[in-house]
């Protein structure tokens, strides 16, 4: 279980408890956090669950694999801290994680 803060592009915060084993994307969708579309359902195949990981947590959220790098080309306003949230698995280690959502996924 980890407490995750999703911050919308407007600044609105959503703090939710997400079960370990789920993805950061699923944590948002299951808790009705707006701003994550996840069209493909979590297959790293559409780039509509893009978000920015707070720099303090970048070393805990793992590395992007080649497919995620490729799919990030499809997202808008990609930065070094950009990730596809379906590719980050929630662990106890991620307790306190802060992620920021882009203006739009499409």
């Amino acid at each position, binding site marked *: 279980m980890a407490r995750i803060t999703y911050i919308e592009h407007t600044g609105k915060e959503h703090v939710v408890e997400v079960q370990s084993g789920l993805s950061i994307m699923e944590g948002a969708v299951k808790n009705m956090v707006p701003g994550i579309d996840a*069209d493909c359902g979590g297959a*790293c195949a559409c*780039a509509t669950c893009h978000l920015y990981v707070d720099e303090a947590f970048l070393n805990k959220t793992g590395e992007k694999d080649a497919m995620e790098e490729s799919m990030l*080309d499809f997202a808008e306003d990609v930065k070094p801290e950009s990730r596809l949230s379906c590719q980050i698995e929630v662990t106890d280690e991620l307790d306190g994680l802060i992620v920021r959502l882009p203006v739009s996924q499409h």
Partner: protein
Amino acid sequence: MSVAETFDPSELPDPYATPIEELDPSDGRLFEHQKHWAYFERLRKEDPVHLSENEEFGRFWNVTKFKDILAVDTNHQVFSSEPSIVIGDPPEDFTLPMFIAMDPPKHDVQRKIVAPTAAPANLIVLEPMIRERVCNILDSLPIGEKFNWVDKVSIELTTQMLATLFDFPFEDRRLLTHWSDVATTTDQVGNNYMEEEERKRILWECYDYFVKLWEQRTDQGDKPKMDFVSLLANNPETKEMVKNPLEYLGNLILLIVGGNDTTRNSISGGVLALNQHPKEYDKLRADPSVIPNMVSEIIRWQTPLAHMRRVATQDTELGGKQIKKGDKVVMWYISGNRDETEIDRANDFLIDREKARHHIAFGFGIHRCMGNRVAEMQLKILWEEIMKRFDFVEVVGEPERLQSNFVMGFVDLPVVLHPKK
């Protein structure tokens, strides 16, 4: 002369009376006469990864379920897009390289160069103009008399949009429609209405036209204009492309067909679907804020491109079947979007459907539709403006459809407009 005139659709085999091993859903006439649904329904249930073999297309696997399609689409190492993304193979002397039919790394380079044209930052700039055009088109339509919605609205709107994305001479824009139609009129997709030599001749006219545009648009430096031609002509990676006529033509055809046939047929398909589902039309009248969700549902329902094909680069297993290196693998998006094990009530058209964006019409993975946002934006604006003006876009006759296993196209959709009271 078209064969359709002497053809009786009831001659098409009943899929449930055919031995499963003989079932072959690739005949373009099945789609023209809407007989394909039952073929895919049976395949999804009884043999979801199904081998077919026929004279026209050789041996190919039919992948019919959502999850299996997703597995193929996201595994580009094992399932190559080269040399073509439709069932039939192109002639050796007229194989058009285009980035949709390329694998990484070349695919990634070329796609990235043209993608900004169809990206949100550019679309925000274009939106007011698109809305103005939609209004002009709708305000010019005849009221209370029958006309072909395909020609006056679907083609007109998408062709205007495409002309803008290419910065193509506006008065010549119907040439884009013509070239798009010719490009997809081929036995490679189950359509035999045109001789290949005639098709080639017309597509070379397209090339000649676009060479002139290319020559006018070089030397824009590192800040080229946002149209497709300027972006290709000024990028160090592609600025020599014009010297490879097949590759320039290939990418033109990709962008023309991609921006034309798809949205055009979703515009027509949406009108037909709402007519066939009057309760959904009532929902729309009661609450037009459902439009963005409805747009995704229309795209799923229509699935304007029925399939994409791949070639296995190695022996592999899919859905319990042994796929051999070199086998063609056809992902039937049109079937995946009706897969009830993935999409709740997949055979119902529901404009307020939950998770409407979870459809496979744009494909998934590195070849996912580049113009999906352009498509969604055009459909959204169109329906917003339709609902301001008309109570009912009434379909008043049988639609006429295209013979193709690839483009789910309308030729004629007769309608009468009923203005808002």
